[in-house]
């Protein structure tokens, strides 16, 4: 499945030339070895240091020169500790939530970019959890700096980080209802009149696919 050209036209609708882009659907499978660069070393080291590797890591994805380990949520803390202590990923650069309402039973994703200053390496771990049970183990005990980031992700996506020392809202007011960056939370806005024409709010404008 792929589209040709930047304007998304299929067949012969696009008369303005070929844009050079080949778009493929996001891969859902694991990447094949060799991953390239230091990614093979990271995977080998982790397999050696962590006997449960095959069970805990659902997929290993290499895309655009970045390595993503999809980890089961039950094993997240174990994997994080091994990555920090054995593979020397000393720094976790926060957590970013992503809401995929179409990904049934894996609607909420949490993405943790990791940095190893010793080896000058970067990888990413990703955990997917269902909307109906939005719990994740907190990584504050592994990387203390994740404290505010987890609060932000709770605030914006409603992911509950079990074991967090004080999971409260951080950016929105304490009595706010809902989690604003979820896809089912409307952006809001009002139509604006300009020179007699009405411009609809951004979330009601046409969306191009």
């Amino acid at each position, binding site marked *: 499945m792929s589209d040709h050209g930047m*304007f998304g036209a299929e067949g012969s609708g696009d008369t303005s030339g070929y844009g050079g*882009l080949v778009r493929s659907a996001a891969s859902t499978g694991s990447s094949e070895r060799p991953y390239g660069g230091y990614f093979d070393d990271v995977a080998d080291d982790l397999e050696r240091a962590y006997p449960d590797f095959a069970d805990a890591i659902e997929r290993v994805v290499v895309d655009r020169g970045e390595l993503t380990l999809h980890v089961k949520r039950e094993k997240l803390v174990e994997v994080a500790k091994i990555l920090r202590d054995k593979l020397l990923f*000393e720094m976790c650069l926060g957590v970013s939530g992503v809401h995929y309402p179409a990904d049934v039973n894996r609607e909420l994703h949490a993405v943790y970019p990791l940095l190893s200053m010793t080896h000058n390496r970067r990888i990413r771990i990703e955990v997917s959890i269902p909307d109906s049970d939005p719990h994740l183990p907190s990584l504050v005990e592994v990387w203390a700096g994740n404290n505010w980031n987890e609060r932000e992700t709770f605030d914006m996506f409603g992911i509950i980080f079990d074991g967090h020392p004080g999971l409260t809202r951080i950016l929105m007011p304490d009595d706010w209802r809902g989690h604003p*960056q979820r896809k089912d939370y409307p952006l809001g806005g009002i139509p604006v009149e300009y020179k007699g024409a009405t411009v609809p709010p951004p979330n009601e404008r046409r969306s191009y696919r």
Partner: protein
Amino acid sequence: MTTFSDPYASSRETTEGTVFSVTGGDWDSLVTEIGATKEERVVVNMGPQHPSTHGVLRLVLELEGETVTELRCGVGYLHTGIEKNAEYRSWTQGVTFVTRMDYLAPLFNETAYCLGVEKLLGITNDVPERASVIRVMMMEFNRISSHMVALGTGALELGALSPMIFCFREREKVLDVFELIAGLRMNLAYVRPGGVAQDLPAGALPKLRETVKELRRDFKDNDKLLIGNTIWMKRTEGIGYLDLAGCTTLGITGPVLRSTGMPWDLRKLQPYSGYENYNFDVVTADTCDVYGRFLIRMNELEQSLRIIEQCIDKLEKLEGAPVMVADKKIAWPAQLALGGDGLGNSLDHIREIMGTSMESLIHHFKLVTEGFRVPAGQVYSAVESPRGEMGVHLVSDGGTKPYRVHFREPSFNNLQATAAMCEGSLIADIIGAVASIDPVMGGVDR
């Protein structure tokens, strides 16, 4: 239901429960009330409207005498929902949003975002060299203007008024450079996916050389005022201590990390936009304190000037080279023109699309209203901003709008170190410690 009473808030009973009204009280009555209790402990709010907390930062301090026993930060007063809003705009419009996050380092926001979009598009290597050199030059100018605010306001907050005057004089020169090149002084939206919005105006390079010369001369005024100044040393040496272990576990980057002696600078270690082609040094200190971070910022100014000079040399050789990718399906169609009143539409371009070529009009219309499509996937791209690692996590679903834009803001992460730096110190030293972190609340709250 238990009834609570609070010396800081009056309360009344309602059907829903006790309602507390937290208002500013009369200091005398508060002192009398506190005097009646046995406890020495006082809880004080510092901010969010406080001239010395670097913006709308609220610090909740628990004090014993003048010693801080516990400190908590309250943030979120400047939350603007930029990340959410960006999901409803095209990838190019996103630049205009993200430039407003950390408003003292707009070019770093833009560049980090655009590097991410380019990585998603797979055109990282197609960005013309001239565009990369301009990006580097603008970022280094921006680093100077940002450090000038950090130093000037930091000194002001500690009671030193004169450095502020010098720092803002220098910052003004940098903002003039921005105005010359991009037409705007802040929130430039100058860096675009695929390149930059507009080439340098004619005759810009000699002016830039002149500015570099003036800046190098005038930086000495601040050196003379502060380096080795006894009062300044007493307010900064040994204050806000945070060592390497503390930095790594709290995810602290930038000058705070480099003040522990760790030469961690993404420009050197994970170069982007061609930073590997420039000669410059990573400035470190080994004191782990406010003075060390101050020295790092002062010395980084000279390194930025060195990079800018190399950029100007390169730009002279690259005169007339393109500043936007060749792929017309990504490159923004309007070649803007810089007029007396700022950046505006190019009359030549309007003549072409309105008068001569219908295909150009269609092309322009499609690209501006729909935008370009970005292949599905996710990336993380990071740049070394004046405050540390500015990371961008971008997710695309293959459409013309971002599916998710997340900024890993260095201010947000670094601010977590406030408690570690300040607990056990005096109230007055909090100001110095917060100033040395240099948080920008627009970036913290996004």
